[in-house]
């Protein structure tokens, strides 16, 4: 499978601050690559570099074989970008917003009318096509925002947090749209800090923290990295950075120790729970509340960085 999107040892610095630090990954046709990380991890900067708007400090990027800085118009001709914030003209209608995007994307003049109608139908806004966008709900704006990125039917799509702040109905609609694009062979790079979205949509995931890729693989591969372990979320009078001593045979590992809360990974959680509770009781820190959880990508991020995704 040849890649439509290639990022190789990408570095982007703003003065002394390094936003992206040696990032490498590829995205092939029919693939949704999830770039996961907390706010400020370098996801949006990576996307800006891929659009050709922001020059990299070093490294290289390729969009369908075109370097966005050497051949910007060729790269952009096959690239669709929907940024984190909706960037629509509130004082124009949905139809006019799409027409404007068609003209900018060099859609042939005799194709514009049909393309606009097709997209309005796809995003379910055909009956509101002539209404001003200012009157739209947040979910409708999100759908139109995505449609604008699709006016030239790009082979590569960059979706920056596409599901943030939308109601459940719009969310379901957008997920169906993204899955449909994947099924039609589009290469999609999707950034998110929501593990559920990544687990639902992404064929491969790259976990990024402070500009560095710290893990990569399919969701299943990454979950396997945690082993067959369950998670115990324990609440009690625990101090910050508490390091309790568990019996060696339990195989327990403290993933996170916040004040009042411990997150412990153990094989076979239901059987290990009584021993864990007893060990903490003996250490003088009885547990007030215990919850048994299945491991997720969020757990993996926590294990890799020691921080929650929304920190």
């Amino acid at each position, binding site marked *: 499978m040849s890649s439509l999107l290639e990022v190789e040892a990408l570095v982007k610095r*703003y003065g002394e601050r390094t936003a992206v630090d040696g990032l490498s990954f590829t995205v092939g046709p029919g693939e949704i690559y999830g770039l996961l990380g907390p706010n400020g991890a370098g996801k*949006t*900067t990576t996307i*800006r570099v891929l*659009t*050709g*708007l*922001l020059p990299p400090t070093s490294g290289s990027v390729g969009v369908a074989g075109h370097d966005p800085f050497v051949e910007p*118009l*060729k790269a*952009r*001709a096959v*690239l669709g*970008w929907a*940024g984190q*914030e909706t*960037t*629509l*003209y509130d*004082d*124009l209608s949905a139809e*006019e917003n799409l*027409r*404007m*995007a068609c*003209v*900018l*994307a*060099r859609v042939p003049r005799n194709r514009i009318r049909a393309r606009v109608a097709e997209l309005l139908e796809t995003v379910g806004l055909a009956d509101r096509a002539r209404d*001003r966008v200012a009157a739209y709900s947040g979910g409708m704006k999100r759908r139109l925002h995505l449609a*604008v990125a699709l006016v*030239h039917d790009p082979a590569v799509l960059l979706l920056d947090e596409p599901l943030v702040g939308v109601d459940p109905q719009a969310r379901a609609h957008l997920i169906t749209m993204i899955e449909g694009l994947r099924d039609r062979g589009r290469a999609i790079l999707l950034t998110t800090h929501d593990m559920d979205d990544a687990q639902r949509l992404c064929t491969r995931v790259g976990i990024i923290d402070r500009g560095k890729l710290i893990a990569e693989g399919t969701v299943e591969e990454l979950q396997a990295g945690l082993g067959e372990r369950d998670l115990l979320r324990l609440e009690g009078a625990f101090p910050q950075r508490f390091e309790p001593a568990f019996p060696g045979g339990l195989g327990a590992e403290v993933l996170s120790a916040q004040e009042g809360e411990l997150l412990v990974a153990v094989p076979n959680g239901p059987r290990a729970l009584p021993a864990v509770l007893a060990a903490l009781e003996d250490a003088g820190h009885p547990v007030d509340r215990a919850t048994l959880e299945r491991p997720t990508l969020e757990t993996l991020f926590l294990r890799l960085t020691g921080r929650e995704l929304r920190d």
Partner: protein
Amino acid sequence: MGRLGTLTLLELRRRVRDPLAFLTWMAVPFFLVLLLVVVFGPRSAGLPRITVLVVNEDGGALSGFLGSALDSPQLAEFFDARVVEMEEARRLMERGKASALIVIPEGFAKAYLHNEPVTLRVWTNPQETLLPKIAVEAVTFLAESGGLLRAVLHPVAGDLFDGDLETRPSLETVLEATRRIYGILDRPETRKILDLEAIPVVDHHPEGDTAPTRSEVVGWFAPGMVALALLFLCNGQSQDLQEDLLQGRLARAWSFASHPWVSLGAKAAALVLSATGSGLVLVAALALTLGWEPGRPVLVVVQTAATAAAFTGLALMLRSLTRSAEVGGAAASGVMVGLGFLGGCFMPTVFLPPFLQRVADLIPTGWAVQGYLILQGSTWAGPMGSLPLRILLLAVTAAITFAVASWNMGRKAVTP
């Protein structure tokens, strides 16, 4: 229609979706000109009449001459002279109801007739500046005239009253005095002093109505007001482009396969076109309703377009230097008001000190106002041949400021 044309039309559609904003920008200067016409126009009140109080402590008919002189048909247009008692005069002055108080002292007439030193006292209203000075000047003029008359008629006056002002002279005495006065007035040396035709005064003021016509007054202020309206309209509109930048719409447009100049050019063209259209609507409104004669229509269109382009570029450049719409708006407004004042938008530059008049020759607002003045035929602003230079200067300003604004905005648009 090409891509640039289609995008410009869509951008223009964004502009005209809010016609109220345009009407507001254009209505304010229109009503300002209307108000100025009312204040300075043919039906204006002009200077107020100056209220002068006269207290005649001397009491005689001769003393009353001064008060009645201020009440003569020639001076009554300017003065409202009232002869009052001292108590009433004090009360009115304390309440600020008069500009000056003249006190004719006891013994004034006797001293006057006998060619003795005499003093007139004038109190002025401290709350006023100009009107009391005019009153004092008028009284001084009357007193000097009285001194001249006394110099000529002193011998007759002495015989006529014979030093006794209380006793009425006999008819024979009056007739004899009259005959002698005519004799004195007929003397060549007297005529040299009194004959006003010896110093001819030619009034060059146009005949008929002395107040300026309405179209003249409109012509004083309309050029500045049109430039001012464009200045504020362009500043207000430039906020839209700054918001396109700050809210990521500019970066989004640049992510498509068109050169950034296409989207930026369409946005700038729409701003200039809508400002030009609005400016021409204002010019037409002033011409149709207030009788302004702005000049040749084709040149007015060119002048308005050049002005709109220069002011739009200037506003965009100022906003591109700031990081938020609020700071950008405040900075641009401050600079615009300053440039408007120095350029003669608020008042003709002839009212400004000479060095500030020279500043107007060096700034875009000055070129804009001067252009409109030249077009309407105000030769003091420059000959018609100097109009192309001003339009060229405005166009160069537009080109430079657009280039700076584009570079700055381009830099900011791509940084997340």
